[in-house]
């Protein structure tokens, strides 16, 4: 049991280091509070954005927390890959540059074969996607799906996109 834990931890930590480096341009790692007896302790996330000192995740800025959490989730996903991923507004806190980096990373992962369904109001995310499903509500609160806009084609019926951001 300890062996399988250690193996999983090593994999996820390895993934985290690589993914964090790319997404946040800095050094990140997962730390077991009690490496010899992991089950008696916990696991913290430490990260060091470029130029700054190593800090624990709770002390970071809102955007840095988001980016670090996303890198952590992606590390878990890379260890246990699924055929599709659904992400709901995970780019809320991110500035334009980080939203762009995230969108680029999702795009690259989707090219490798995974399907991504991402709810977002952010222009960088929408621009990097292959197609967009527009959702609006009619006067009585009923959802209307206004159309699937394949990028590169006429924007068509998707006024929902123009309203946001």
């Amino acid at each position, binding site marked *: 049991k300890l062996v399988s834990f250690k193996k999983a931890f090593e994999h*996820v930590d390895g993934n985290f280091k690589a993914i964090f480096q790319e997404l946040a341009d800095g050094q990140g790692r997962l730390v077991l509070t009690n490496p010899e007896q992991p089950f008696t302790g*916990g*696991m913290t996330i430490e990260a060091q954005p470029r130029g700054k000192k190593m800090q624990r995740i709770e002390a970071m800025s809102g955007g840095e927390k*988001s980016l670090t959490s996303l890198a952590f989730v992606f590390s878990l996903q890379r260890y246990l890959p699924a055929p*599709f991923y659904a992400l709901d507004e995970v780019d809320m806190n991110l500035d334009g540059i980080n939203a762009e980096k995230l969108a680029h990373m999702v795009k690259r992962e989707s090219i490798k074969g995974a*399907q991504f369904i991402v*709810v977002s109001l952010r222009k960088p995310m929408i621009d990097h996607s292959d197609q*967009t499903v527009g959702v609006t509500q009619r006067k009585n609160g009923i*959802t209307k799906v206004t159309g699937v806009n394949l990028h590169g084609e006429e924007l068509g019926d998707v006024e929902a996109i123009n309203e946001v951001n």
Partner: protein
Amino acid sequence: MYIYQIEIDNFKSFSGQTVIPFRKGFTTVSGPNGSGKSNIIDSILFCLGLSSSRVMRAEKLSDLVNNLSKRKEAKVRIVFKKEPHDRVFEEALDSSNSTQSTVLEQASQLVLGENAPVKKHAPKPELPAESALSQDFITVSRRIRESSSGSSSTYYLNEQVSTLTDIHEYLGRYNISPGCFNVMMQGDVAGFVNMSSVERRKIIDEIA
């Protein structure tokens, strides 16, 4: 494999039937606040039995039935398209009752395998001819019905009545399960920061 389309009928803010096509690759869903985007994600969680009502912001199952139409039933069907290079595990990787499911799995192989007869229900014009169906597509549906005695929930796998356990086991082989982190809901990101270090370590326990 990937999600080919989602059919939402009378679920949450969708009154009447809506068919949403998806493709391989990277799809965004966008629109104004309150329009129904997160409800589409909820429909995936609902259909595949991936989480509880509370996670879908409902106090009880019946809250998931559209409250504007008069109908007392809600249904979601997801059509998956298989791909030649799909990695299918003989046994659900993260199934914690893996010894029990082996017998179940062998039984379902017979019932739901590549050559199982597929019962026809309502017309499904978007899907290819039936002979091709079981070869290239997998369908999972869930329907809830409100009645005077409460709500009942029925699952269907490849158009045949099934159970949550069977569906979990079947999807588990494609690495879709409640234990995975492939669905991130609105606001989840903050959770990873706020959780205690012990809870975070337990995530690794779970996936090991």
